[in-house]
């Protein structure tokens, strides 16, 4: 089934491929399968891949490939996705200390959604999220789907810097900031886990497709884990 796939040149050396314009788990699975196939059978001339919610950006070397040639190859790969098994998902737990200095926006989110802070924490930690993709900065996982009751718009003016490990929510997504970066997501907690470490074998704690749960922890537990 390739008729719902759209191709769009993004630059003279990159091609965007859209599986429609709706974020669904089905589309997510197709993107993961396509990534897997491109890993198993690499295409000479492809330099980099950037998966996202319903798209895949493919960077290529224009000295070896053209938009048209790459599109033909990708269409043939997409035609084989149905024969591919879904890659295994790992289960990951994110110990998180909610509220206080670690989650400066927790009270505001609660007020915006007509809940108590404790209810926000309970709801946030009650579901299993899927890592739709990693992007923005190394190790930043876009997790969905946030329970409807927690959906909250971004901050009007983003923070200049967000402490590493901060757990934020934006729209119907949640995520964890691996680095001190500017950020417009509302911060409700913080994890002591290092989400990205260049000196670790698995640099990124999370990978595309992982199934993730947040586990509320105390400030004392946070300090103990942070110093572990």
């Amino acid at each position, binding site marked *: 089934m390739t008729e719902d796939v759209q191709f769009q040149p993004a*630059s003279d*050396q990159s091609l965007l491929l859209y599986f429609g314009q709706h974020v669904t788990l089905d589309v997510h699975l197709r993107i993961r399968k396509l990534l897997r196939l491109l890993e198993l059978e690499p295409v000479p001339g492809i330099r*980099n891949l950037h998966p996202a919610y319903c798209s895949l*950006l493919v960077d290529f070397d224009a000295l070896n490939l053209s938009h048209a040639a790459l599109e033909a190859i990708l269409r043939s790969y997409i035609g084989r996705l149905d024969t591919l098994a879904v890659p295994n998902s790992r289960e990951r737990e994110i110990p998180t200390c909610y509220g206080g200095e670690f989650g400066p926006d927790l009270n505001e989110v609660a007020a915006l959604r007509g809940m108590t802070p404790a209810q926000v924490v309970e709801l946030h930690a009650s579901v299993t999220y899927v890592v739709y993709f990693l992007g923005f900065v190394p190790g930043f996982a876009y997790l969905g789907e946030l329970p409807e009751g927690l959906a909250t718009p971004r901050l009007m003016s983003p923070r200049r810097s967000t402490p590493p490990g901060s757990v934020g929510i934006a729209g119907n997504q949640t995520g964890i900031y691996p680095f001190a970066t500017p950020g417009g997501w509302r911060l409700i907690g913080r994890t002591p886990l290092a989400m990205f470490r260049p000196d670790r074998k698995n640099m990124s704690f999370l990978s595309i497709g992982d199934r993730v749960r947040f586990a509320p922890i105390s400030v004392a537990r946070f300090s103990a884990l942070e110093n572990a």
Partner: protein
Amino acid sequence: MNVIQVEDPGLLTTVQDLGREGFGPIGVSPSGAADPISLRLGNRLVGNVESAAGLEMTLLGGTFLFPQGAIVALTGSDFGATLDCAAVVLGTSFEVAPRQTLRLGPTRSGARCYLCVRGGISVPRSLGSASTHILNGLGGFGGRPLREGDVLRIGSATNPFRKRTIAPQISERFSSRKVLRVTPGPQVDWFSQPSLHSFYEGSYRVGEQSNRMGLRLEGTPVAPRRAGEMITEGVSLGAVQVPAGGLPIILFVDQQTTGGYPKIANVISADLHCVGQLRPRDEIRFEQVTFEAARSLLIEQEQLLASEDSILE
């Protein structure tokens, strides 16, 4: 072991090679030299492979002591270099005697000057590259810009010194353009005709907040006509994205790998090295070309670089 002692790092000096490819799925951007053409040429002048690691200096160069001497070349912008107080020519390899000091000052032309040394700068590779990504602490010398007192190792090499110079036609061809050629961005239809007109007819000033992640432009805003948020997607090198305020940002080598703002245009690959030489307050303009023209320009550029007479001995 031959080394370089950093007596003064300058404003912002990092170890860079041609970057790391293939780590998009974990959110890692390529990094690498902001003006890769200058790094490649500099490496050829000292007899290295084009992808060897060198030092990228920004706006204000540093002071470097070579206790055991070295074979060195400077490329990119003219930072008024001197070797023990004698002027050094840009784009020509030269020998540094033991205990000599190479001193660079403020730029006299573009934003970046490259110091290439025979054997390359030797640092541990991170994800296959020596390139520094400052925000992530990846690669380079401890994942950070150089500081006073740092001691950099020079890779071993035994090829004899030959005085090499960049051919005049190459220097001419790769001199920095202020009119950047672009192809249409994936969300070009989010912008009205008047917005597109002012984007291509007006000029923009490079903002002070610009860095290796992105160049913020000041000028006529080009607000997207469609309201509502875009679904986050991958962004390519040189993408010109337009946030809600309408002031474009050119995403550059240390860029975010995905983003949710519409892209009006994308700088062509053949002009990306010019972006690396833009300074804050530079005036630039955009000129649209077709994808086919962009590809032809890149192929022509690579053929020119590969030709035997691009470097003179």
